């Protein structure tokens, strides 16, 4: 138990800080479309060139081969640099934090050497094809079918909640390859080229006015069998590995950013008039206590993240405990923005974008996704109850 950074880690922190000072973009991120894609990929390329891509990825695939603690240090320095955009709000998210890590663990050598460097260099945008209209919390009931035809899979069906599908090159896709097997046994995890004929993409409008989500339709889409990751009909296991990354460290950047958000909110409460119309909001006892409470909770979140990293460092792989952090984080994120709406008073009726300085209502609306996406809080609680605590299934 210690909080000390090794000399190497300390040096890493200083390098990161100094590099960010010189290289952080000053322009805002375009909120949608090809412009967004170009911006995100350019930034990824800048990161790669600076040595800040794939910090905890193996060196042989273009990563730095460093520790999760260093990865966290990078996120912290990024958040402190007062960036004009948030880190995870990028179409490079799925490649860096879902697809990439899954391939590192489950991919074959050809897959690793082809896809991993392209992700880090900002050459491919990845998207996720897991959920379906009838398979949400019950992911294993997915219906999109894939029939083997020679050395290809022929895919027909529909996916939904596919972030960035409309700008993506590559998709991590779950398909049913054996309709007769028990539902967890007939699934395959496969890499799909989004330019393959037979794919149709429709954007989904959301309550937060963000248009990153898409529905994707597949009509006899042909995918080479060599794109299967982790083995045919073994996709559930591969997908669980993807999700354990999502529940483990994928949201580390968000968690770090939330601490900065709370500090901004405290500042907001100092300058705004409170509910009584006379004193500053922060002079209101209830607001003050709620602010201090979320301040203590983001501190706890950071400590829990370090606990998680410490645990992973001992076991080598992210365990189900990741759901503890994910659950705490998702609900805390919502509480922070609900509190923000109380603090800004009548300005809570003014719609703002989801991303940017001093905006609160857009992120409030977006915050509903934090307890739904990547497994609802009900699912996370089931995982904590059953897989961490060992309680019986119903």
């Amino acid at each position, binding site marked *: 138990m210690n909080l000390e950074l090794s000399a190497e880690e300390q040096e890493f922190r200083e390098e990161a800080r100094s590099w960010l000072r010189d290289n952080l973009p000053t322009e805002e991120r375009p909120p949608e479309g090809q412009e967004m894609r170009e911006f995100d990929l350019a930034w990824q390329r800048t990161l790669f060139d600076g040595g800040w891509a794939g910090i905890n990825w193996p060196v042989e695939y273009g990563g730095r081969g460093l520790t999760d603690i260093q990865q966290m240090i990078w996120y912290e320095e990024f958040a402190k640099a007062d960036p004009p955009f948030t880190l995870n709000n990028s179409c490079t998210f799925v490649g860096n934090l879902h697809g990439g890590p899954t391939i590192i663990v489950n991919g074959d050598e050809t897959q690793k050497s082809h896809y991993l460097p392209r992700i880090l260099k900002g050459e491919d945008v990845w998207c996720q094809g897991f*959920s379906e209209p*009838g*398979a*949400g*919390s*019950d992911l294993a*009931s997915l219906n999109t079918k894939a029939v083997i035809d020679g050395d290809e899979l022929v895919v027909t069906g529909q996916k*939904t*909640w596919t972030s960035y599908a409309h700008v993506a090159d590559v998709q991590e896709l779950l398909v049913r390859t054996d309709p007769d097997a028990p539902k967890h046994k007939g699934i395959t995890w496969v890499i799909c080229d989004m330019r393959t004929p037979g794919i149709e993409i429709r954007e*989904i*409008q*959301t*309550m*937060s*006015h963000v248009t990153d989500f898409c529905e994707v339709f597949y009509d006899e889409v042909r995918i080479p069998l060599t794109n299967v990751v982790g083995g045919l009909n073994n996709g559930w296991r591969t997908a669980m590995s993807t999700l354990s990354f999502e529940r483990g460290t994928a949201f580390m950047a968000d968690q770090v950013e939330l601490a900065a958000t709370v500090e901004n909110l405290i500042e907001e409460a100092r300058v705004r*008039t409170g*509910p*009584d*119309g*006379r004193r500053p909001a922060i002079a209101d006892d209830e607001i003050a206590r709620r602010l201090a409470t979320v301040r203590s909770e983001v501190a706890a979140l950071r400590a829990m993240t370090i606990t998680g990293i410490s645990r992973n460092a001992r076991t080598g792989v992210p365990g189900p405990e990741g759901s503890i952090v994910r659950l705490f984080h998702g609900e805390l994120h919502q509480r922070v923005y*609900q509190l923000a*709406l109380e603090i800004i*008073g*009548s300005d*809570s*009726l*003014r*719609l*703002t974008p989801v991303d940017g300085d001093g905006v609160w*209502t857009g992120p409030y*609306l977006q915050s*509903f*996704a934090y*307890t*739904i*996406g990547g497994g*609802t*809080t*009900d699912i996370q*609680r089931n995982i904590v109850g059953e897989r961490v605590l060992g309680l019986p299934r119903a």
Partner: protein
Amino acid sequence: MDLLPTPEQEEIVTTVRSLLERDFNLNTLAERDGADSVVDRSLWAKCAELGWFGLGMDESLGGVGYTLAEEALLFTEIGAHATPGPFLATVLGARLAALSGAHDIAGAILSGESIVALAEPHTPGAASASPTVSGTFRVTDHGSADLILVMVGTSSALINASDMVAEPMASIDLLVPIAVGTVSDVSPIAGFEENPGLALRANILVAAELAGIATATAEQSTQYAKDREQFGTPIGAFQAVKHRCADMAVRAEAANSLVRYGSLAVLEGLTDANFHAHAARSLAATYAVTNSQINVQNHGGIGFTWEHTAHRYVTRSRVRSQTLGTVQSHLQSLLDQPTPS
């Protein structure tokens, strides 16, 4: 003592409900998302014909002759259907005009000819409605308004819409156009320096609309829990979902019971009418916001889409919670009341 609607009241509710479902369908209204007015004048005239705007007003004043109790039931349905439009300003504006003797104005409002927007202080203490109207206001449904009902505490006034310079702002609820308007020393065309009764009715009607939101979201979640299947069973069989639905139903029952009680306390002029109006207003707001947030969660990804109506309740409950006071201001007013006898 009885807190369930009479058969006659049930009939009013049924009529209101069927019109709202048919003509105020949210999927159709979505075409007006972000517009500066959501009022369709022919529809508005139809509501007027049905007597909605003078439902709780004496016949001697040009109203239908029912009471605040029926008016509250109407607003509960408006809330339950997330129906947009200046209903509140219309009902209160007609009443203000009639009570102050401006019968032609009252008539124009009741017939649906004059559209009324609602203005309330943009920041506390920076606006007045009497003897002249001055200050910076938050104005709801300003777009096609002919008149503006200005309410500042217990004083209220009607002015012509042209007397206000209004700057639209991006509203969190795309079907509730909001503007920030300034008025400088304008004499009202009708008004009261002090009419606590009007403010009291306003609290009840806003509370009723919020109770409607709490109710509709409870029902929407329950229905979805019956229809949506995962893991081979309707999700309502899962205790986590079931218990959330149960809690939502409890909140709805609490809000509705208290709003009904409050409407009757005001109607019957009980000494604790203020107590119950503030209690109903704060409780209904809290429960409406809570239920609408949980309703999104219960719908999962579907609830996060624009296409689904769940988000309408989230933003509507936020707007109405801040209409004529906030949860905090009403809680403070409630605490200031003496113990009910």
